[in-house]
């Protein structure tokens, strides 16, 4: 067992938001078959949204570009899915939520409380949804206000997921911490774009989107490293995690746990594979606890 923000996880690999998280059954499958230590839902908002037109995700050698556009059934319809995940997944279930302002975040958080999510993750970082996500998450005052509002509304841990598309991510991280966040999650996708040269059309239906996968890992490692230095609260590392080596590296940068997203493309049981790989590494190196890895690189000077 592994404790993070007061929650007990089977292992330090957690399903990232927006991946296989639209239905309760899917979240349960990731936990049971995939071996995830915890799962984060699709980001849920105040109103049903169909998202951007397709293509909404394309794969490159180095990663993935996506612009889903926060499709979600809204909190009233998502309650039944959250119920299923809570009942059958056997792991902590974190509800990812979004809104355009503190009042909308409060409405969604309150609306999902009856399903008793184990924590909330605030999406203030989606790079391609007008008026949401990074549109609010690049403003430190708004991030602090939203975090404080949700903290007042719920009595479970609140994580804040940060965007790397800002000049200084630690400034936004500090705002979340001042608002009372129990942890920050870094990073969301990096702004990106691809163009179909046969036609000149941007490939994504939304024209541009966010980059994830292997290509963003060094960016994520640096953001986590800096946040670990700047903040007192735990940092959860996400971005390009696709092997146990990636996870160990991220933890050495300062991550208290890792989230895994795009890498489910390769295989669903990536969570079991990474958590077993971490265990084997700890034994080989003679560490008694995974916590000894967290922030280790900061001491190596």
């Amino acid at each position, binding site marked *: 067992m592994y404790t993070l923000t007061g929650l007990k996880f089977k292992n330090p690999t957690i399903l990232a938001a927006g991946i*296989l998280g639209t239905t309760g059954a*899917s*979240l349960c499958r990731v936990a049971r078959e995939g071996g995830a230590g915890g799962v984060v839902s699709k980001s849920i908002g105040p109103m049903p949204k*169909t998202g951007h037109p397709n*293509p909404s995700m394309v794969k490159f050698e180095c990663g993935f570009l996506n612009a889903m556009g926060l*499709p979600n*059934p809204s909190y009233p*319809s998502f309650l039944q899915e959250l119920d299923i995940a809570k009942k059958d997944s056997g792991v902590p279930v974190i509800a990812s939520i979004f809104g355009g302002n503190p009042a909308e975040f409060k409405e969604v958080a309150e609306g999902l409380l009856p399903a008793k999510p184990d924590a909330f993750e605030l999406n203030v970082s989606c790079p391609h949804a007008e008026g949401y996500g990074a549109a609010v998450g690049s403003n430190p005052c708004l991030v602090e206000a939203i975090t404080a509002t949700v903290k007042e509304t719920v009595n479970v841990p609140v994580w804040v997921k940060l965007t790397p598309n800002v000049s200084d991510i630690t400034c936004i991280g500090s705002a979340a911490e001042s608002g009372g966040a129990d942890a920050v999650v870094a990073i969301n996708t990096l702004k990106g774009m691809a163009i*179909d040269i046969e036609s000149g059309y941007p490939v994504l*239906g939304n024209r541009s989107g966010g980059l994830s996968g292997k290509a963003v890992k060094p960016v994520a490692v640096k953001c986590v490293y800096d946040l670990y230095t700047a903040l007192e609260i735990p940092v959860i590392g996400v971005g390009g995690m696709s092997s146990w080596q990636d996870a160990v590296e991220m933890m050495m940068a300062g991550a208290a746990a890792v989230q895994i997203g795009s890498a489910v493309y390769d295989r669903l049981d990536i969570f079991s594979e990474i958590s077993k790989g971490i265990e084997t590494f700890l034994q080989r190196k003679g560490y008694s606890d995974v916590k000894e890895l967290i922030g280790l690189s900061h001491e190596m000077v």
Partner: protein
Amino acid sequence: MLPLNATIVRIDEESPSVRTFFFDFQFETMKPGQFVMVWVRGVDEVPMGLSSKNSITVQKVGEATSKLFELKEGNSFGLRGPFGKGFSLPSEGEKTLVIAGGVGAAPLAPYAEAARSAGSEVHTVLGARSADDLLFEKFFAETGEISISTDDGSKGTKGFVTDVLNSLDLSVYDKIAVCGPEIMMASVFRLLEDRKVLERSEFSLHRYFKCGIGVCGACCIDKSGLRVCRDGPVFSGVQLLNSELGKYTRDASGRRVKI
């Protein structure tokens, strides 16, 4: 992969609302039942079953397909794929039953052909609203026996494919491949379950796809959580026991919608 540029080399009018678009390259590794994401640039990208290694057969139903119908020979669209899991092929000497309804005949045409080539005896039950809407009738007839049903009785048995299936001994078939409108597939599913041959069957499901590559989770079905785009679109009958088949689907926002 980024979308490949597919230039239209021929358009066949199959029925008043269905056309086959042949393009200028072949998906050599295509397994019957696999799909491609068809990108109508500037509009949308939608999944389509391949009706051959170099064609898609499309029913005009929405914005993307309407725009596709405006395209002429020499025009192009984007294609990604082939994706997903196809139908499993019979072994030599095995008997295959193909059950196709409406535009569901599209991915089953190459399947019937491949089954025949594998040395299987193929029997197709082809259903449509009327004689005009029957797809690939001649093609299926060339792969083996064919039985037809039309809702209005304009050809073959008046009624549904299940009316034809009622008079067949289903225990003789080693492989049963099904694709068609969900209500039809749900009826066939119940019938195969009653006749205790469900474990020999495979069904191709249609759900709203977002990413199309198994990452986003928009197309996951209850209660298994299986992804239609990656773990399917072809599922064994057994995988679909206690599933949402015939009950509900999800719209683009993820809300459940009754079928």
